[in-house]
């Protein structure tokens, strides 16, 4: 059978077969759609043969990747840090296939055939923290997360750093809905955050974000909301402030090109010059927007180093 496919054709200009794993539906207009767009771009630009699996539960990731291996795919991209464990495990077992894994840190022991994409979510949350601190009048900022994962903690820490750096005394209340994709809970919890006087809501959710916007949409409340991954302004143009925009097209293109060139391993940190941007803030003072721009510029220039702190917040 095709099980031996991964062993043959070493080196040379072999046909690229790229497979991707997504955690949810690729039509989510969020993290997974971004993944599919990047994959489609790779297909077009690099003439790669591509395939993907949607809604792959974490425990199934290993099996699904093995199936791609068996089908002779030679680049396997698992889109989401929840797959990183399974990905590095398979990378060790399949030295002839190149894997692209996502992670929220620099791995301690790099593998020869594993590209690590560090999403560095904290970096983008520093300017968000600047924005929140500058925009809040009540001094209360609500952070709505899903699961309390290390990367979520790093986002809150980065915001706190920003508040501290900018001399703001505003306080962040982090809350967790328990699910990145549960909009109803996000709506309820956001409503209550606003009720408690929080006037900047920082969302770190996937599909749940849609619910958070419904808490403000059509309401006269003096609140701004920030989101993650994609432009979400249409959900509530009145209260939408900004979003940390991610683009996986360039990183994926870069990595695959390198892989074609024979570099089968590396560390690819996301940052403001590689796939991340902050959308032009709306509904806030131009002065606030300027502070955000400055923060981004400072991070790019190295004037500011955003500390990556993955430890739980007390």
């Amino acid at each position, binding site marked *: 059978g095709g099980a031996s496919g991964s062993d043959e054709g070493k080196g040379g200009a072999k046909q690229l077969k790229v497979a991707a794993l997504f955690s949810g539906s690729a*039509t989510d*207009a969020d993290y997974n759609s971004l993944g599919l767009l990047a994959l489609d771009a790779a297909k077009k630009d690099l003439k790669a043969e591509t395939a993907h699996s949607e809604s792959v539960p974490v425990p199934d990731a290993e099996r699904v990747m093995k199936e791609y291996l068996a089908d002779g795919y030679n680049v396997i991209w698992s889109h989401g840090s929840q797959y990183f464990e399974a990905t590095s495990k398979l990378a060790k077992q399949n030295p002839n296939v190149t894997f692209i894994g996502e992670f929220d840190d620099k791995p301690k022991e790099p593998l020869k055939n594993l590209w690590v994409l560090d999403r560095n979510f904290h970096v983008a949350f520093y300017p968000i923290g600047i924005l929140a601190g500058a925009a809040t009048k009540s001094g209360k900022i609500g952070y709505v997360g899903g699961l309390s994962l290390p990367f979520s903690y790093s986002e809150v820490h980065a915001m706190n750093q920003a508040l501290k750096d900018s001399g703001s005394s505003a306080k962040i209340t982090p809350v967790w809905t328990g699910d990145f994709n549960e909009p109803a809970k996000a709506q309820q919890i956001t409503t209550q955050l606003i009720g408690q006087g929080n006037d900047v809501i920082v969302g770190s959710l996937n599909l749940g974000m849609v619910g958070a916007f419904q808490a403000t949409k059509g309401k006269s409340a003096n609140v701004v909301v920030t989101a993650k991954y994609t432009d979400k302004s249409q959900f509530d143009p009145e209260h939408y402030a900004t979003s940390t925009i991610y683009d996986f097209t360039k990183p994926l293109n870069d990595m695959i090109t390198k892989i074609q060139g024979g570099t089968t391993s590396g560390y690819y940190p996301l940052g403001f010059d590689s796939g991340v941007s902050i959308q032009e803030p709306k509904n806030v003072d131009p002065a606030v927007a300027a502070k955000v721009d400055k923060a981004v510029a400072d991070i790019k220039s190295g004037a500011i180093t955003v500390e990556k702190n993955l430890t739980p917040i007390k």
Partner: protein
Amino acid sequence: MNEATSFLQLVVTAMVPFILAAQGTMIAGRAGVFNVAQEGLMMLGASVGFLVSLKMGGNLVGLLVAALVGAAFGWFLGWVTTRFRLDQFVIGLALFFAATGIASLLYKVVIGVTLKPPLIDTLPDLEIPLLSSIPVVGTVLFTQDVMVYFAFLVSGLLYWMLYRTNLGLKLRSVGENPKAADSLGVSVARTRIWCSTAGGALMALAGAYLPMTYTGTYTEGIVAGRGWLAIALAFFGGWRPQYILAGSAFFAGMEVLALRVQVGGVDIPHQFISMLPYAATLLVMMFALRWASVPAFLGRNYDRESRH
């Protein structure tokens, strides 16, 4: 608006899907049809309700079509379990699978991949004249969207129909002792099919409400187990509309309260807070013997020529 009012308003909104799905479960169950496809039918209702509202413009059309689709599923369950006496549990699960699959498939086919998901308007609040100006109550109960009124109205109507009309007398007898009902000329099959149809419609409406109040769009996690909880709620409410209404308030209250506790900054891990509603329900059930009855023929098919 003060804190308590906004809290109660959230609770009332959160009650709606519970009320509709559980009353749908109840009405089918009172006639003996045990529907277990709630979770799927709610997904389908959400998907269809959203897509139709989007494409045909107007939430009411969306709600109507969602109800019709749910009714079709309910009808199918009623029909095959009476006409062919197929196992209700198995058919229910099959319908759950089918509805779940179709819900996402429809969205994929109609919308596809986009970074700008289309949105519909959520349901506007309708202030009931006079009543809405009562302090607190007016805001909590009478400044709500149309589905809130509908859910309460349906509960009231179901109560009235079950206990105050001849139709209800017949309906309940079909779930308690179908043979007796049959021997008196009450059509067991027809009653069951109708109730199951109505139940399916209510479940789909429960689902359709979610995009129309919480998101303005269909998302895959939108139902998030509320369908399964509706089954629990039907048992919790002893299969009676008035207790189900009370139970919905309890479930929804717990759901919102659990989040409120976090927002208030109570130092309990959020995972424990999220267990609160379920654990509380179990605790309440320990003292619920008095009202926790179940229709005698729930889930059992009736065969006129069998001796049992």
